[in-house]
């Protein structure tokens, strides 16, 4: 194989003119003339990219359309390869693979592809100055370089995927689901707090009313007990008289009852008379109770006992009650309207309405209302409703409604009592007739008991007097201000019950209690207002977030930018749940992609620094893991038959410690002491190591195989060139390479040595000196 190079380079880049068709071939020349560059270009043509990123950028800028021609290939083939660096990407680092952009190709004069050229050629280059230590370093660098290449590929991929997911993240970002959920939770809590505050206020109001009632009862009682009032004297007289006649009546009633029982035992007429009289007394008692109720209710209601008047008053009270209930409903509607405004105004002020202020929202025959106008109008109405009703108004309404309800109930009760009293009178009339009939029957039977009859007449008279006195007393109590005409004793008893319910021992404590409760009411109203304001603020926040969520999900479902998502994100009825899931997924993916990218980058860094004593990154655990993995990889790479034979005297490699740069060998089951890498770095060992690595090469199936040993000056200096030449000509190397090239830096000043040489050596030196004068290098058969 012969390779000719036609450089079109710039910037001081040089390439030697030719690699002759000689094997093994020795090329010796000055540094910087392009010996190695020529081999690297052949590696590129063979499909292997050997350059680091920095070297690649330098090559792209200086190579130009350099041409490589090959002839003497198997089956007489030829090719011509023209590099086209103008087509090489400037955006990426050293490429992972090589493509048709690399250059233009003809094979046997016909246009061909870069790939076809690759199939013609196999090139393997060994650096002869690589001992074990350098080899391990180079191999860790290869791992690092691979990881960096993958890192760049992953970085590019993450950028592409982020370009897709980024706009999605931007749409989802205005609302944080965690904050959204927390705010909804806070709203629930605030609503409960508001409800509790309102209940506490209602309870204070109720207690305050009880205290006010007790104070009112106490004051009435005090007024009723005022000794200077002339009514008191009459009340005491009547009460005394009532007690006397009540006592007389009880005695008389017992006597009558006793006589009645005796008469019953005497026979039917007497028994019938006793029973008739008992019924009459019962019905009269019942009538007195009804009359007493009517009088009490009439006093409380301040109305005459007239059914028509009562019906009119009941109708008026019902109407007033309905009006109050309408007013209460209006107040409640105001609160609901505030909530509705919060909802709608939240949407109109949210991101979904951004930039739409001047758009028409409502259209009437005369005019349209824009979104901004509607929102402003709503906020003004909300502000108005916010201050209505006053808490006092609401409480007053509730109290008035309660009073009216009680009044309506009492009016109905009064009407029922008046209707009942007429019926009761009819029953009394019937009972009186029965008594008269029974008396006549007794008369006829000759069983008349005058004493018994007189007792009955006296009892009737006493009961009539009791009715009269009781009625007058009720009137006096009413005039004294006791509610419902109650007696002072009853009023006192009622007041005691109130004090007990209020857990107050003395009525004198009521005033202080009332003042305290009034203060508590003020505090309670403030607490309710504060809680309500908090609820309203949170409700607005939730509404705005809801609107943002709806807007985001709507945008994602309809915007063309997210069309690629539609197969993945299906529509869900609950957009908040869908939003939360999508938000979590997108943010999670972006974080994970970044972490994956970082991992590859860090692993590359750690691989590159595996031979360093100190970790390259703070993640000690990962650093140790990378070292352990690389050590095992390198151990397997070294523990091959050839290397064991040539370098380790047949021993196996047991372990490698990269940090300590040591390895342990094992022979016949016995481990050696750890040995430093550099103990295998004598020239002889480096040569042995190179031989082992060459022999490990898998023979390529490509038709034209070039093996290059570069940087082999150390062997020449040690006078090992004959050994090398013998090895390269050996039967073991023949299956691996069709042609072998050994490259050396300039070893001698051949011109100067001419005077010191004779014979064949002088002739050889003269030829070399001449070639060096012409080309800065010479090429010749490597002699054993």
């Amino acid at each position, binding site marked *: 194989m012969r390779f000719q190079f036609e450089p079109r380079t710039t910037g001081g880049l040089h390439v030697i003119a030719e690699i002759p068709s000689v094997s093994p071939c020795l090329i010796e020349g000055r540094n910087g003339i392009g010996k190695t560059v020529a081999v690297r270009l052949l590696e590129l043509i063979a499909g292997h990219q050997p350059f680091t990123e920095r070297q690649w950028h330098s090559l792209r800028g200086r190579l130009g359309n350099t041409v490589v021609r090959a002839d003497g290939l198997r089956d007489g083939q030829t090719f011509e390869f023209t590099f086209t660096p103008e087509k090489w990407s400037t955006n990426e680092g050293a490429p*992972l693979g090589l493509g048709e952009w690399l250059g233009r190709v003809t094979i046997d004069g016909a246009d061909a592809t870069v790939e076809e050229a690759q199939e013609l050629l196999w090139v393997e280059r060994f650096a002869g100055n690589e001992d074990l230590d350098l080899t391990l370093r180079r*191999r860790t660098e*290869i*791992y690092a*370089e*691979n*990881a960096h*290449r*993958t890192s760049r*590929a*992953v970085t*590019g*991929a*993450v950028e*592409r*995927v982020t*370009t*897709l*997911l980024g706009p999605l993240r931007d749409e989802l970002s205005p609302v944080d689901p965690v904050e959204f959920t927390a705010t909804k939770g806070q709203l629930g809590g605030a609503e409960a707090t508001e409800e509790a505050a309102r209940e506490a206020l209602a309870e204070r109001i109720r207690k305050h009313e009880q205290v006010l009632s007790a104070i009112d009862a106490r004051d009435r009682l005090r007024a009723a007990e005022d000794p200077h009032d002339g009514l008191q004297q009459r009340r005491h007289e009547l009460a005394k008289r009532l007690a006397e006649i009540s006592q007389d009546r009880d005695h008389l009633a017992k006597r009558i009852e006793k006589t009645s029982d005796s008469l019953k035992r005497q026979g039917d007429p007497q028994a019938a008379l006793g029973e008739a009289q008992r019924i009459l007394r019962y019905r009269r008692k019942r009538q007195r109770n009804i009359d007493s109720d009517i009088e009490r209710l009439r006093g409380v209601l301040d109305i005459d006992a007239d059914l028509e008047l009562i019906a009119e008053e009941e109708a008026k009270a019902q109407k007033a009650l309905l009006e109050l209930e309408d007013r209460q409903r209006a107040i409640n509607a105001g609160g609901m309207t505030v909530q509705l405004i919060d909802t709608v105004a939240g949407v109109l002020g949210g991101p979904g309405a951004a930039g739409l202020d001047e758009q028409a929202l409502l259209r009437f025959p005369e005019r349209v209302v824009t979104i901004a106008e509607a929102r402003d109008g709503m906020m003004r109405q909300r502000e108005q409703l916010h201050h209505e009703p006053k808490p006092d108004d609401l409480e007053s309404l509730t109290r008035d409604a309660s009073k009216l309800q009680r009044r309506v109930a009492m009016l109905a009760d009064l009407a029922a009592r008046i209707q009942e009293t007429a019926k009761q009178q009819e029953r009394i009339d019937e009972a009186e007739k029965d008594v008269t009939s029974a008396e006549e029957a007794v008369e006829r039977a000759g069983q008349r008991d005058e004493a018994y009859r007189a007792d009955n007449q006296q009892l009737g008279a006493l009961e009539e007097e009791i009715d009269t006195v009781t009625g007058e007393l009720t009137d006096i109590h009413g005039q004294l201000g006791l509610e419902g005409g109650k007696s002072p004793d009853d009023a006192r008893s009622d007041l005691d019950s109130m004090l007990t319910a209020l857990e107050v021992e003395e009525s004198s404590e009521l005033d202080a209690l009332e003042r305290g409760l009034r203060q508590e009411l003020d505090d309670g109203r403030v607490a309710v207002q504060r809680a309500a304001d908090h609820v309203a603020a949170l409700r607005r926040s939730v509404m705005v977030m809801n609107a943002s969520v709806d807007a985001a999900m709507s945008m994602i479902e309809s915007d063309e930018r997210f069309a*690629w*998502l539609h*197969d*993945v*994100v299906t529509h869900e009825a609950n957009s908040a749940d869908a939003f939360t*899931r*999508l938000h*979590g*997924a*997108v943010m*999670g*993916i972006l974080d*994970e*992609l970044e*972490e*994956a*990218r970082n*991992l*590859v980058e860090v*692993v*590359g860094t750690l*691989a590159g620094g595996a031979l360093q004593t100190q970790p390259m990154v703070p993640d000690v*655990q*990962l650093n140790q*893991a*990378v070292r*352990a*993995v*690389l050590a*095992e*990889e390198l151990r397997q*790479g070294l523990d091959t038959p050839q290397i064991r034979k040539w370098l380790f005297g047949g021993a196996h490699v047991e372990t490698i410690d990269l940090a300590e740069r040591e390895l342990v060998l094992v022979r016949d089951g016995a481990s050696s002491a750890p040995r430093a890498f550099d103990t295998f770095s004598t020239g002889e060992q480096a040569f042995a190591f190179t031989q082992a690595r060459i022999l490990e090469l*898998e023979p390529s199936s490509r038709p034209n195989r070039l093996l290059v040993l570069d940087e082999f000056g150390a062997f020449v200096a040690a006078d090992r060139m004959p050994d090398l030449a013998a090895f390269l000509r050996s039967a073991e190397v023949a299956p691996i390479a069709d042609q072998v090239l050994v490259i050396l830096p300039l070893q001698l000043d051949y011109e100067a040595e001419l005077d010191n040489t004779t014979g064949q050596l002088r002739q050889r030196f003269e030829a070399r000196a001449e070639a060096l004068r012409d080309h800065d290098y010479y090429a010749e058969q490597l002699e054993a």
Partner: protein
Amino acid sequence: MPEESAHAVTLRLLDALGQVIADERRESLIAHRERVERLIEVHDDESARKAAQELLRDALSV
């Protein structure tokens, strides 16, 4: 050493790391290795779209 592509070497390295890394980090490292393998298949807009769809589908199915 047999010739391997850069990505294959890196993935092999990550696989090996998954074997030796501490238990608490293993699951995360294996998951990242799967992501890396998926990402190195991304080379243009279409493959990026496909990868994004798969990543989202996986994330939403959890």
